[in-house]
């Protein structure tokens, strides 16, 4: 079965759909958690600490978090590898472009591909910035509130983050609907509802994430 799935374009799309949905679920939780920043440093930092203690005493400190991280890494890798292989295949399947080209045709495909690359790079930066602090100018372990505020006090921090979140919105907008089609849950009757759901979710996620840098910029969060 694994071979059937991985060996087929339809199967690889399924891998993308499932891994995409896992990441989407994570993002919803992540976004909601982020909003706690508007309730002050104490609450936010406490929440961040709690994330490491989920499942205690059954789970050891940070075990749950690592479990989530492993699943996420697997999802990202599966998503990216499938996307890369499928894209390679797609490009090979159309070796010669039309002389009279029509930009509309590839709009969704292109936004997905470039959006995906942008998001991949963003995740790297994001981890190095706020998880490991490697590229952070003033990283204080255990004090995420302060770290976030510091990042969004720089112009490039805001630009990178907001651009990435816009890309995320576009990615989800096509990706969620697309995943539904890939998993075979779309239908003519459900199509409008699915598209609307994808749009609303994309909008809410983007708005929710961007609220944080905007909050810092406007001084609501400081």
């Amino acid at each position, binding site marked *: *079965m694994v071979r*059937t*799935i991985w*060996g*087929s*374009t*339809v*199967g*690889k*799309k*399924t891998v993308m759909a499932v891994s995409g949905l896992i990441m989407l679920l994570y993002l919803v939780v992540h976004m909601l958690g982020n909003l706690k920043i508007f309730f002050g440093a104490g609450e936010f930092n406490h929440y961040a600490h709690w994330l490491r203690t989920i499942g205690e005493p059954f789970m050891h400190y940070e075990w749950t978090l690592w479990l989530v991280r492993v699943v996420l890494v697997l999802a990202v890798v599966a998503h990216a590898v499938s996307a890369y292989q*499928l894209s390679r*295949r*797609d*490009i*090979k*399947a*159309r*070796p*010669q*472009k*039309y*002389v*009279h*080209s*029509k930009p509309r*045709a*590839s*709009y*969704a*495909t292109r936004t*997905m591909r470039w959006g995906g690359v942008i998001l991949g790079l963003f995740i790297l930066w994001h981890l190095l910035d706020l998880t490991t602090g490697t590229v952070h100018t003033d990283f204080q372990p255990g004090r995420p509130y302060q770290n976030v505020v510091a990042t969004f006090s720089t112009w490039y921090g805001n630009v990178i983050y907001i651009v990435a979140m816009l890309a995320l919105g576009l990615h989800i907008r*096509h990706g969620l*609907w*697309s995943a*539904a*089609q*890939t*998993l*075979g*849950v*779309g*239908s*003519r009757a459900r*199509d409008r509802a699915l598209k609307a759901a994808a749009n609303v979710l994309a909008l809410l996620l983007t708005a929710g994430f961007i609220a944080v840098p905007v909050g810092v910029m406007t001084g609501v969060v400081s």
Partner: protein
Amino acid sequence: MKLTLRVWRQKNADAEGAMATYEVDGISPDMSFLEMLDVLNEQLILSGEDPVAFDHDCREGICGACSLVINGEAHGPERTTTCQLHMRSFKDGDTIDIEPWRAAAFPVVKDLVVDRSAFDRIIQAGGYITAPTGSAPEAHATPVPKADADYAFEHAECIGCGACVAACPNGAAMLFTSAKINHLNVLPQGAPERETRVLNMVAQMDEEGFGGCTLTGECATACPKGIPLTSITNMNKEWLRATRKAAKR
């Protein structure tokens, strides 16, 4: 009408191709697009040039032979086959670009003619119901709900022209493949081969070098017979179902 045509010319499969420019005059708006090309070809023959090769046959929109990308759109600006496109869709003095279907799985044979035998091989992989002549039960032995029969028909309308592949930025044959799978899988007669059909046809489709689906919907927009994009969704569903069932066996 007077028109400037820029046409893809390619001597044979191995030769390099390029766009060539021709002028045609005295074109009537009532002509079909292919009749306009007939006029060009008559002109070329008399001037000792090689006429433009293009596939065509029934010229009434059903055989699926005609296959031109006109101004970047498969079958041109109207949602119909090239043979049913009329020159009234263009303006006097227009420049029209005419190219063959472009896809790795549809290599150019000559000029605007491409090799679509990959489609035949997809059908050969499972696009049928095994019913040897003489073995059929009485036609009314198995009633088919009207909705299912209509659904089957809607997908069976595919003419195999390949516009879906030509329009798809990934050169994917999902819509073609899904149309046949949906046609046969919804019918009770098609049920015994339901799983093998979808698995084998999708595998053959991949084997032929078609791209994957990114759900841009270009295929359904270009389809002269209006095969809906949900056809692909349902094929995916059938494929996942078949994969699960195969794993259980």
